[in-house]
């Protein structure tokens, strides 16, 4: 479904990604792990067309993505939940969700799509008229994911969804991500929280300083002492 081949990227300075290759198959959840500056976020941004200087090859269902304007990518069926959530702070929850369907603004089933999001995140429904910027981090994360789902993506890019959230909320999200995947959406999940990510994902890649250093199924990676060492130094 998604194929990334020999991807390199830089923001003016030295390469942040160099020669990264990975793939996501239909129906899969794939985790990308790595330390803070390993290049995980850049990888997702490159897929979404936000890194103008990316080189290499990215294909989604056979369509080449590099060189395509960023705003034309969601329409292909890729939803991106950015790091730091990036909800529209001075819009209501409902307007935030509606913006997610911007590519499909003429679609008739908008109410149904909203209902589906509400079903996934009942808490969002309770607070649908509130300004998104005033809500808690967890709620914002749910809005951000819900917004991406409004575009009925085939592939969902999730960038650090558990970042800075309380454990209970992380649990909730974790369940939701599994549910989304079960509904047939492929997921590419970037996480620092390695164990959480691997517990949801089928497979995973470990990035270090812009390179893929390890890859394998979730079980393989969970058992790998290298992963533990990379995170805790033990």
């Amino acid at each position, binding site marked *: 479904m998604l194929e990334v081949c020999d991807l390199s990227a830089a923001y003016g300075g030295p390469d942040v990604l160099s020669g990264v290759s990975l793939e996501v198959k239909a129906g899969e959840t794939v985790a990308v792990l790595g330390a803070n500056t390993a290049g995980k976020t850049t990888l997702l941004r490159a897929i979404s067309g936000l890194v103008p200087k990316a080189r290499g090859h990215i294909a989604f269902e056979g369509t080449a993505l590099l060189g395509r304007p960023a705003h034309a990518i969601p329409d292909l069926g890729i939803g991106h939940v950015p790091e730091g959530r990036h909800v529209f702070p001075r819009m209501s929850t409902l307007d935030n969700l509606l913006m997610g369907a911007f590519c499909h603004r003429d679609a008739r089933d908008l109410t149904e799509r909203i209902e589906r999001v509400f079903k996934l995140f009942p808490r969002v429904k309770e607070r649908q008229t509130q300004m998104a910027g005033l809500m808690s981090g967890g709620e914002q994360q749910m809005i951000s994911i819900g917004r991406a789902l409004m575009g009925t993506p085939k592939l969902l890019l999730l960038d650090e969804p558990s970042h800075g959230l309380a454990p209970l909320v992380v649990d909730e999200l974790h369940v939701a991500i599994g549910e989304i995947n079960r509904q047939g959406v492929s997921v590419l999940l970037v996480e620092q929280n390695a*164990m959480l*990510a691997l517990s949801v994902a089928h497979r995973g890649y470990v990035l270090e300083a812009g390179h893929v250093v390890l890859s394998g199924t979730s079980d393989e990676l969970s058992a790998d002492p290298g992963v533990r*060492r990379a995170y805790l130094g033990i």
Partner: protein
Amino acid sequence: MGALLEADAICVTFGGLRAVDGVSFTVNAGEIIGLIGPNGAGKTTIFNALVGLQPLTSGFVRLGGERVSGLKPHRVAQKGMTKTFQNAALFPDMSVVENVTTAALLRHDLHGARTKAEAVLEKLGLNGIAQADVADLTFPQKALVEMARALATEPRVLLLDEVMAALTHSEMDEVMEVIRGLRAEGLSFLVVEHHMRAIMALCDKLLAVNFGRLLAHGTPAEVAANPQVIEAYLGHGAVGKEAAHA
């Protein structure tokens, strides 16, 4: 009081959100203390609060027994505490030596500051790139130059915010060697670092934070074995059933 740096129940609130919530700790002369915690735990906010970039909502910071909370950062620097920035906030239109000279002006006239800057660069092994434009530096070089700039203010306590991010293992070893050398001269450090390997090897003590609160403190081994810390890092499930979260 023996402690060189003392944080006493410091709190920082951003519009209702408690980013730092009653954190207390001390740093003694010649100590290297590590500050660890997942992203968004409040580490950088703690640093900013210590040096005066971020006003405290409550609590105190004392340096050498003297209260420094409430002072502007340049006054704190004059008292002997400064920090580096997470993404190397160098002055981009200046050369390396100019960057360092600017900071050395805190305690020297222009001529003295130049001499001081050269000495600091020499000490960090950066004299080869003294005349280079900072825009042309690699990331590790930038981190070192920023450390040099901070050292040029002749601090007693230096706060390092992820200087080793994106360094290779051998580069990391070099930087750690430099830090140890400086400690031998009596300088104290508080370091935020993601590379646990470096932190474990470098620090005398660790402070672990999450959600703006202190989770644990103690020797690196103690802290690394603390179930709460492991959970904060790896997510629960990683430590098994015994780690029921509170």
